């Protein structure tokens, strides 16, 4: 059975590969995003050597690396679930002896791997040729970073599952999905590191799962977090990954009872 779940990763990876135009344009989009933010941050920093705990060199690396993380943790599971509910194909999923949510998670993972390997790494090479990035020299930082973006994927996907399952309860969950997307992009620290927010907002954000998606792994990678802070950051991520399981299961149970199948 485990091999079936692995197959879902493999098949999604291959399916993504089949759409080639998407592939090439994806690399350009990622390189462009990083480039734009690079110049934006350069302008913001001006002559200042350090802002909100990040040096100018660190912030460019932070931007590059948080986009790299985003390529991996980002997925459209919420939209996929909503679509399957809308067109009724969720019925087919329910007659298969597997966990629907776990399969979705695997498909998201296949997609994330694809983006990381096929968009982001080539994109990063392009970016490194154009802009000075200071990548960490310690191998442990790289290891911890990959562990942490694993958690990022998990937390972001869990939020997507929750948003997607809303489609069982709402006639149209488009609004909820957009709201979630804005929240994640804004509050996770991809656009603006959390340390740049005003004090009260930082305190509030520390109690939300979004910062665990991008800010924490980015900070560890760039060296803004060190020593015991790294362990704490991983702990926060792990705690959110566990804490989000319960609401998903509760929602899934309620959804099963409410399930309706559109179109006969």
């Amino acid at each position, binding site marked *: 059975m485990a091999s079936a779940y692995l197959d879902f990763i493999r098949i999604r990876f291959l399916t993504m590969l089949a759409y080639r135009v998407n592939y090439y344009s994806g690399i350009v989009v990622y390189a462009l995003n990083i480039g734009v933010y690079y110049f934006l941050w350069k302008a913001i920093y001006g002559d200042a050597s350090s802002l909100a705990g990040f040096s100018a060199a660190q912030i460019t690396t932070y931007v590059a690396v948080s986009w790299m993380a985003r390529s991996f943790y980002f997925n459209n599971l919420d939209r996929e679930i909503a679509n399957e509910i809308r067109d009724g194909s969720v*019925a087919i999923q329910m007659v298969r*002896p597997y966990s629907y949510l776990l399969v979705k998670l695997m498909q998201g993972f296949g997609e994330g791997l694809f983006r990381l390997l096929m968009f982001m790494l080539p994109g990063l090479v392009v970016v490194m040729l154009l802009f000075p990035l200071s990548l960490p020299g310690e191998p442990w930082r790289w290891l911890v970073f990959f562990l942490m973006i694993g958690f990022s994927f998990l937390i972001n996907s869990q939020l997507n599952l929750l948003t997607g399952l809303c489609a069982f309860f709402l006639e149209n969950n488009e609004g909820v999905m957009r709201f979630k997307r804005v929240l994640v992009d804004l509050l996770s620290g991809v656009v603006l590191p959390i340390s740049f927010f005003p004090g009260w907002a930082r305190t509030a954000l520390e109690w939300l799962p979004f910062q665990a998606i991008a800010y924490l792994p980015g900070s560890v990678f760039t060296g803004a977090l060190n020593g015991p802070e790294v362990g704490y950051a991983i702990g926060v991520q792990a705690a959110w990954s566990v804490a989000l399981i319960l609401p998903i299961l509760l929602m899934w149970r309620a959804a099963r009872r409410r399930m309706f199948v559109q179109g006969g």
Partner: protein
Amino acid sequence: MPAIEVERLRKTFKVPVHRESLKGALLDLFRRRYKEIVAVRDISFRIPQGEICGYIGENGAGKSTTIKMLAGILVPTSGRVEVAGFVPWRDRETFVRRIGVVFGQRSQLWWDIGVIESFRLLRKVYRVGEADFRRRLDELTETLQLADLLNRPVRKLSLGQRMRCELAAALLHNPSILFLDEPTIGLDIVVKTQIREFLKKLNRENGTTILLTTHDLQDIEALCSRVIMLDDGRIIYDGSLEELKERWSKGREIRFRFAAPVAPSELATLTEGLPVRWTAADEESARLWVPRDIHVSDVLSRLVGSLPILDMSFQETGTDEIVRAIYQSGSASVPAAAEAGEAQAPAAPADGGEASRAADGGGEASREEPVEAHVRG
């Protein structure tokens, strides 16, 4: 243990009611009103292992909803379901290994990958051993003639080709119960026949229990030993197709062609006293309607010697016609008029054959609750 057992099964859906006008729309924003729709109303039946049962009814009668509850997709509002010894919705992941499901209007194969890749993935999902899978696949490839299709992507298949692949996909794990929701919809007559033959063989050789919904009554005639008819969420008939026809066909029509013109009045005189009805088509042909409780021999003995009959043919009421009549009346109980007519002449010796058939036809579970008479409001 019956393969499928259903007791007082009910499913209701809550649907929002939209109020009219702008004011209504604004009110909807704050407090939504819901309406309850009953899709399946307390139905009960049991299907023994190895039976092929047809589940028919008009669109929206509740057929698909029932199948979806039986397959573990939907959770019933109330009542009891047991399929292959499992409560489908509760033990879903274990339970669905025992069943196969085909939805005529939905594909269960992965659109972007080759058929054989879909099959391989299903093998893993259902945890079928490699050797079993090989054997089963070879078998299915042969009987459903899939050899040329296996390496094509699903999106490049015609509907008929896809349907054969869907059937194979549903059977790779050798389920003991097969649910088919309109399996022949949109297929040409060749593929339809092929699929019917395949299902018959499957049932005969593996003892697979099959429950299928369809709008094509030829599916039912070709396959089903039993029919359950649904209307507005209720079972209005449960029994054999023969019995349904017998109960509902009120008689047969005999078509005559005469060698010479015959006056309608002459025809009427000949059958005087018999409850039959003549319809004259033209001077040289006529149609005679004979109720089913009148022996054809009684009628013919009066006619054969006196009329120059050139040709004669019998017309039974077709299944399509019968089912249409039932759908329209919303009840499968014999119409009141025919019932009354029968009641008036119960002692007639001509009726004997009919009566005894009805009496000894028992033994099947279906007889116990033959007809749930039901009058629409």
